[in-house]
């Protein structure tokens, strides 16, 4: 059976358009362009309460996303949550006494980790532990606290 040239060209175009669509989805629609998959380094931090923080939540400093939450585990000894964050390798100038807090984007938005730089000369590297942490604000607790405080006054 003979296939005409035009059919071959059309099939080639078809496959090429498929690749273009794939490229568009990966680069423009998804986070593939903003997060480099490899070359990041991991730091961990312990929190008393992480609220509803999820794996893949952004890790940001000064509002810029510089990494992602890689894993959340529970430490049975300290009863704290241990969060592993992957920071992109180009942000390797962070001081070792950087503090981490769990924040909420907007009133109903998702939770993310905000980093605040410290003043140490030493820098964070793979496996570093962030000592200064601030847990997620749980709305119920906050309201409870507020009521308790206003009562005592």
């Amino acid at each position, binding site marked *: 059976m003979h296939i005409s040239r035009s059919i071959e060209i059309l099939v080639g175009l078809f496959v090429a358009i498929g690749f273009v669509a794939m490229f568009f989805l990966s680069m423009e*629609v*998804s*986070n*593939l362009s903003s997060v480099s998959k490899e070359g990041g380094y991991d730091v961990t931090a312990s929190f008393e309460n992480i609220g509803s923080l999820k794996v893949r939540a952004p890790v940001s400093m000064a509002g810029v996303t510089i990494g992602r939450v890689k894993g959340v585990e529970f430490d049975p000894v300290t009863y704290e949550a241990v969060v592993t964050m992957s920071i992109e390798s180009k942000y390797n100038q962070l001081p070792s006494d950087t503090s981490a807090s769990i924040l909420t984007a907007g009133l*109903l938005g998702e939770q993310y980790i905000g980093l605040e730089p410290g003043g140490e000369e030493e820098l964070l590297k793979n496996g570093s532990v962030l000592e200064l942490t601030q847990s997620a604000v749980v709305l119920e607790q906050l309201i409870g606290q507020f009521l308790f405080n206003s009562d005592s006054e």
Partner: protein
Amino acid sequence: MLNYFQRLGVSSLAMLERLGRGSLFFFYILMSIPSVIIRPRLLVAQMYSVGVLSFSLIVVSGLFVGMVLALQGFYTLSDFGAEGALGVVVSASLIRELGPVVTALLFAGRAGSALTAEIGLMKATEQLSGMEMMAVDPMARIMAPRFLAGLLSMPILATLFSAIGVLGGYFIGVGLLGIDEGGFWSQMQAKIDFDQDIVNGLIKSVVFGWVVTWIAIFEGYDAIPTSEGVGRATTRTVVHSAFAILLLDFILTALMFGDV
């Protein structure tokens, strides 16, 4: 009453038998795939009739599905003042669900039924038998290239559907409803994950491509070789494909996104 159980038994046995024959058939196709790799021209011809000819249908459907999603999403999101998340809503639903599923359903209607009819007619007019007697194995010459073409075309079409749909959503959201363009894209990029969303959507479309093409080719091959039999087989292809797609979509979604 007993009669009812007997009929149930007979029909489930028949179904099981068909499933068995279908699996065996699939096994033979797999065995014949190397012969297609030696002769890629056969595959190109089938990519044309299976993939390229479904192109316009997929593009038009994708565009409109994306535009409708944007209109409906905007309506709901504006109640919460979260119009900026429109890009996320459109792209997530397209990439995770509608892209693969709607493409597969359209594909079953367009390419699947055509495959069944073509192979069924080849059987009815003794072309398959004739090929066997010419020492040309219909599995390698007819079935395997069509199967591979379906398997390869589906993910391409589904990706295209999603991409066009996102663009359609963009035209409506940013162009017509006046959502901020930067927010549309950036929220989308922040929320859509390559591994989690795009790769999983791609896996879905490959699975759907496999099951639709398999059903279509088998129904054609197994059709009663009369015009009536071929007609019925064509209908069965569309119905069974639709069931299989929706069932598999549920299973895959539960496996992929169930714990998120």
